[in-house]
């Protein structure tokens, strides 16, 4: 135990660990807050689908030697709109629309990667993330993003809650449900485009899904779910960063494994009626 505490004290001496903790916590907060809306609207897998689009967009950016983020953000936003349109207009359920866009994107990413040799190593870093090599620009972008997500969700909390619970009633109440759906889509897209640099394409959707389903085990209300989800998510990211430092583990995988353990613990608490 003393060794662990000493290891943590040692870890926080390093700049890259502090940056990882800060950016990881901000991305985790955004993912968990948006995750509550996405999971309850049965769009859980949108994180996975958009992460695949982001993977394709990084391949495009590397092909043209452009900034991955500049290419990723607009491409992922467009993809999220296509998913919403397919859902609205083509009578496709959300999961099927996500499946179409996701599989197309991963295929496009792999094709581009195979056609242009020489950046496969860079691309692989986006598959699994690199939370320990975060730049100052990443920190600034993450702070702006999380501030935007938190402010917009606070401002439109009641609208977002109403359309998540009962979209038809929200329309009758005169709420602009389409605008709110697109707001969630844009915020999710930007969060994912930035988030995959940290936890990777393979693991970003876990930051969206796990904290919410964990919170759902014990929460009664919507606000409570959001708070528990954010606390669980940030705790897992902080613990995961320290675990990966102490035991030389891949950070993204450590964070997801911790999320799994917390989910199982909350699941047991619910089953045993402890709360």
């Amino acid at each position: 135990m003393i060794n662990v505490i000493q290891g943590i004290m040692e870890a926080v001496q390093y700049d890259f660990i502090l940056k990882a903790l800060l950016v990881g916590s901000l991305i985790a907060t955004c993912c968990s807050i948006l995750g509550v809306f996405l999971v309850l609207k049965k769009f859980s897998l949108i994180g996975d689908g958009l992460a695949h689009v982001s993977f394709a967009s990084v391949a495009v950016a590397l092909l043209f030697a452009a900034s991955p983020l500049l290419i990723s953000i607009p491409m992922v936003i467009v993809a999220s709109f296509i998913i919403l349109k397919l859902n609205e207009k083509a009578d496709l359920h959300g999961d099927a629309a996500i499946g179409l866009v996701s599989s197309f994107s991963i295929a496009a990413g792999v094709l581009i990667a195979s056609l242009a040799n020489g950046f496969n190593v860079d691309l692989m870093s986006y598959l699994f993330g690199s939370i320990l090599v975060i730049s100052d620009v990443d920190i600034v972008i993450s702070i702006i993003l999380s501030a935007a997500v938190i402010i917009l969700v606070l401002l439109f909390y009641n609208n977002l809650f109403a359309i998540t619970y009962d979209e038809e009633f929200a329309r009758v109440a005169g709420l602009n449900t389409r605008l709110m759906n697109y707001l969630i889509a844009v915020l999710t897209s930007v969060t994912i485009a930035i988030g995959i640099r940290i936890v990777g394409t393979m693991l970003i959707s876990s930051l969206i899904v796990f904290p919410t389903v964990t919170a759902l085990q014990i929460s009664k209300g919507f606000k409570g779910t959001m708070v528990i989800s954010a606390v669980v998510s940030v705790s897992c990211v902080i613990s995961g960063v320290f675990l990966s430092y102490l035991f030389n583990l891949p950070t993204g995988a450590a964070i997801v494994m911790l999320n799994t353990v917390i989910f199982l613990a909350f699941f047991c608490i619910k089953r045993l009626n402890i709360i």
Partner: protein
Amino acid sequence: MNSILSVENLTLKYGRHEVLSNISFTAEVGDYIGIVGPNGSGKTTLLKAILGLHPFSEGKIRFNNGSKDGRFAGYLPQKAVASDRIFPATVREIVSIGLLARKKDPKFISKGDYIKIDAILDKLEISDLKRKKMGNLSGGQQQRVLLARALVSSPELLILDEPASALDPKIREDFYGILKDLNEKEGVTILLVSHDMASIGQYTKKMLYLDRRLVFFGSYEEFCKSPDMTVYFGHLSQHQFCWRHLDD
């Protein structure tokens, strides 16, 4: 009498398929109208057109307060999300949604709003449920919560789509009793869609029989004694719907 809603020559199509044809009727203040008809007759579609959820190809829908849609009305939908047991929402949170229609963005729920929410829960005798999770309540309790959501903004017009179809007979009677009190004691105008003609006929003041077109609109007594309806249903069926009046 003052009209609260008038529907004039309403025609609504899904693609080329005409779902409602040339519907006209007027709801007066204090009316309690039961909208009935066979499956697929356009009952729910008519309500959704009134609420502004369905665009219509021809005709007009007018509200006496000048509103363009049914936003000022209280609405209790047919298929409630309340059946989703895992959705994390307390009774108070759900009822608060009913207050959003009259607020400007950004829409915040104030302390005064919580007083209104608690008052309507108290009136519907479910104040003990206010901190409970909606998904953990019984069907009858959930329906009262959704009625509270529809009533919390004190609407003059209440629109309900098959509100009691999933309730057992005793709870259904209680639920209709609440609606009757709202109509008779507080003057709330009610439009209620139901497939259960015999049951709602005991409560409503008027019946509107729909079969993609308006077949009948008038009092329940007229509905039961109308030769047109006898021709439409046959003696036996009409007797099943209207035994109360025909036996008098």
